[in-house]
């Protein structure tokens, strides 16, 4: 164990949850430091209990450790008490496995999941004794890379990251890391290596591109050299059954956010909700076969000892063989006291039926996301569910024994009117009525019916048909929240909302261009990090910095013309811009675009055949057209 840890080990009793920093969990992989050539550390810019719940990080950790020539360790953001301790003892942020300071690694990779975690990345670099700006890193410093779901607009953090990997890790990450190792062994200098990395598929080296502005407006991005590709394609796995998938996941000691065995049953969703970035950037839907899922579940449960299995995806009940899968899993694990959970549910009776079949035990709350208050607005955002569907679903849920229903809505959707807000209130009241009616007429004991209404501010995100939409102002959102508060005052209904100020910052980072990097740096310099935690976010620092650097908020989250350049135009996420424009146009007409798995091809650009021909054969390999 490295020297640094012995200097700090005895003091860990003074910090909150020392288990966050000690590693040593079941299934962790500790390789010999000195005899391994190339050392990688994967970082998650939030605390251990959040980061350890993230599936992508687990896949990358195990995938890289499969290779003898690498070692791959983990690091998470320290809580403030641990940060103080590190600073007091002058110890760099260290990895959990060999307890090495981050600067000792060859490559440090960050997972991007949330826009407000970017200041934490800067903080982790600094605590790990690595220069925060790429331009200040030298031969002795690690390469810093980043990837993940918010990588589709990397611009706000480009000065801090040497290179980005765009897309799904299983496809090309190993090749990228192996190439980097090879070039490093050839003793090439840092700039040459970056130049070579930029030639690889899916790799974006931001320092080799230049952005242009016309006053406040972003006007384009282009490579500095002709030999650098002008566009970077998202890497994606074509066949999920063949994709690398570990089963020997690390088992944390501490209670983490999602403390269970997780099997990803499918990736992608083509329902085409116009606000949903994941639904656009993870296309097409790729399913794992029932046999493969069961094989993975068996191995994962045996290797971890978990007694709960979650079937994860963007929309699990959309798996074409969901019923067969759940039947087989419940039969298989019935006698071994393993419970199965479905983290995401559609608003329909079928979903409730599926949830009922698996959640025989621990049945308390069920969550639905109608997203908007009226059928009309839902048509506009292409969330093709009717009010009646919700009522049928909750009726089923209440009669199966659930007593708490959570409803998620967004405020500030394009075209939202007072009628839509009243719609939210009415839906909540009607759901309560349905529940109370069932409770009155049932013979069995049923707990008091509760309806929880949660609203968040709609954030128009890159690579969605709403990427050109003006984000609603905080004042508008606050008025809407007040309106709902007045209209939702009823016993049995709880109303809660996310802070619109924080959502505004998320929007600014999500759609920001390179100018935002100065803001992020400034906010971090003021002491901000761990901004996913309410107690650590100071929105005023962001607004001060925007002011200081003379960045007009409207130039980022104001209304854009579909013809004007966007800061993420050089990335190819799969769906093409023409499709997004068409969807944007159709939204004004409240025109529906159905899921192409069951209907005609919507010509999004992801596959070159009408997708419906491919999807029904579940193991079909889909060729990449891009």
């Amino acid at each position, binding site marked *: 164990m490295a020297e640094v840890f012995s200097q700090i080990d005895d003091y860990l009793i003074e910090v909150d949850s020392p288990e966050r920093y000690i590693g040593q969990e079941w299934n962790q992989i500790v390789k010999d430091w000195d005899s391994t050539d190339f050392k990688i550390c994967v970082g998650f810019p939030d605390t251990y209990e959040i980061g350890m719940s993230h599936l992508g990080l687990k896949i990358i950790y195990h995938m890289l450790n499969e290779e003898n020539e690498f070692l791959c360790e983990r690091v998470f953001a320290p809580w403030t008490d641990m940060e103080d301790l590190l600073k007091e003892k002058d110890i760099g942020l260290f990895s959990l496995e060999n307890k090495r300071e981050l600067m000792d690694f060859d490559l440090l990779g960050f997972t991007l999941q949330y826009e407000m975690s970017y200041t934490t990345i800067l903080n982790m670099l600094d605590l790990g004794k690595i220069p925060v700006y790429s331009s200040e890193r030298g031969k002795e410093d690690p390469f810093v890379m980043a990837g993940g779901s918010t990588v589709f607009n990397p611009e706000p953090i480009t000065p801090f990251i040497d290179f980005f990997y765009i897309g799904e890790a299983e496809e090309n990450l190993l090749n990228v890391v192996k190439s980097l190792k090879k070039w490093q062994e050839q003793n090439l200098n840092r700039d040459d290596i970056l130049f070579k990395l930029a030639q690889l598929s899916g790799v974006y080296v931001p320092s080799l591109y230049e952005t242009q502005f016309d006053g406040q407006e972003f006007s384009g991005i282009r490579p500095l050299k002709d030999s650098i590709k002008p566009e970077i394609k998202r890497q994606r796995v074509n066949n999920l059954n063949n994709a690398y998938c570990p089963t020997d996941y690390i088992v944390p*000691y*501490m209670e983490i956010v999602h403390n269970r065995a997780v099997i990803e049953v499918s990736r992608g969703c083509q329902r085409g909700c116009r606000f949903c970035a994941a639904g656009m950037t993870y296309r097409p839907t790729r399913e794992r076969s029932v046999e493969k899922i069961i094989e993975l579940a068996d191995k994962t449960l*045996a290797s971890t000892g978990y007694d709960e299995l979650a079937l994860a995806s963007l929309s699990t009940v959309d798996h074409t063989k969901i019923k067969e899968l759940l039947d087989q899993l419940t039969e298989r694990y019935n006698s071994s*006291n393993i419970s199965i959970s479905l983290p995401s549910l559609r608003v329909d009776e079928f979903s409730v039926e599926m949830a009922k079949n698996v959640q025989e035990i621990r049945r308390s709350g069920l969550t639905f996301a109608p997203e908007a208050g009226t059928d009309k607005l839902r048509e506009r955002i292409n969330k093709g569910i009717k009010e009646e569907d919700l009522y049928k679903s909750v009726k089923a849920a209440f009669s199966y024994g659930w007593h708490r229903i959570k409803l998620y809505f967004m405020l500030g959707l394009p075209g939202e009117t007072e009628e839509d807000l009243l719609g939210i209130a009415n839906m909540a009241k009607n759901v309560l009525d349905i529940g109370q009616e069932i409770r009155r007429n049932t013979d069995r004991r049923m707990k008091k019916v509760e309806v929880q209404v949660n609203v968040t501010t709609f954030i128009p995100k890159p690579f969605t048909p709403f990427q050109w939409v003006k984000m609603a102002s905080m004042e508008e959102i606050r008025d809407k929240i007040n309106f709902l508060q007045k209209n939702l005052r009823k016993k049995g209904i709880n109303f809660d909302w996310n802070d619109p100020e924080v959502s505004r910052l998320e929007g600014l980072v999500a759609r920001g261009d390179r100018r935002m990097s100065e803001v992020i740096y400034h906010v971090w310099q003021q002491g901000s990090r761990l901004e996913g935690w309410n107690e650590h976010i100071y929105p005023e620092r962001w607004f001060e910095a925007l002011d200081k650097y003379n960045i007009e908020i409207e130039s980022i989250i104001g209304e854009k013309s579909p013809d004007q350049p966007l800061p993420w135009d050089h990335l190819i996420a799969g769906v093409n811009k023409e499709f997004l424009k068409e969807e944007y146009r159709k939204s004004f007409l409240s025109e529906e675009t159905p899921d192409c798995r069951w209907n005609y091809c919507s010509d999004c650009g992801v596959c070159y055949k009408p997708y419906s021909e491919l999807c029904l054969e579940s193991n079909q390999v889909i060729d990449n057209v891009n």
Partner: protein
Amino acid sequence: MLIRAKFARDYNLRYISHLEIMDTFRKGIRRAGLPGAYSQGFNPTLNLSLSQPLPVGMAGGGEYLDLELTRPINGEGFKARLNSFLPEGLKILDARYIPDQTGLKSLQALLNRAEYHISARGKLKEKREVLIEKLMAKNKIIVIRKRRNKPDREYDIRPLIFEAKVLKDNKISFIVSTGSSGNVRPEEIVKALQTLEPEVPDHSVIDFYRSGLFVEKGDKIISPLTDQVLEER
């Protein structure tokens, strides 16, 4: 049917809480495929109980667990199998199969003696022999205990300290009462030593180790795995 086992939790896992250790055992038992019995009800969990919680920050060399079984398994087999499914630092040292647990006292009710080792530093190291003698010669050792929502209470721990001796490698061993019939915390002993010699280092910089938990029988302390304990129902 029951397995009663003695286990050690090493220094490297001293920051893991009691509940987390419990959960680590449950998962280890599941991984090992051992025939543990589950509770009835909405949340079936393995019927596993552990001896008195170790405070966070302390390792233990003689801790115990009871696991209810659905079919018989011999102690040696249990030990060998489970050990290959536990993380480094958690180890079964000994295990006994108990075919019928009728009338058997729970570990928490049974175990009433604990032995702690204190690694002496500074003045405590220098004057350890004298200090221990002085401590044991006292009639009363009053400590202040904080209580939730109640005023602090004075408490005499002297009758609960049964033995103190100096071991090799600068350690001091104390045998004290533990459990519901009276409990002494090792840091209270260090505080008491500080009243005798103000330069004794603070308990926060001293390493504690619980070397074992025992059952008091007459003037002897014995393991809960002995026939004498198991036969007395």
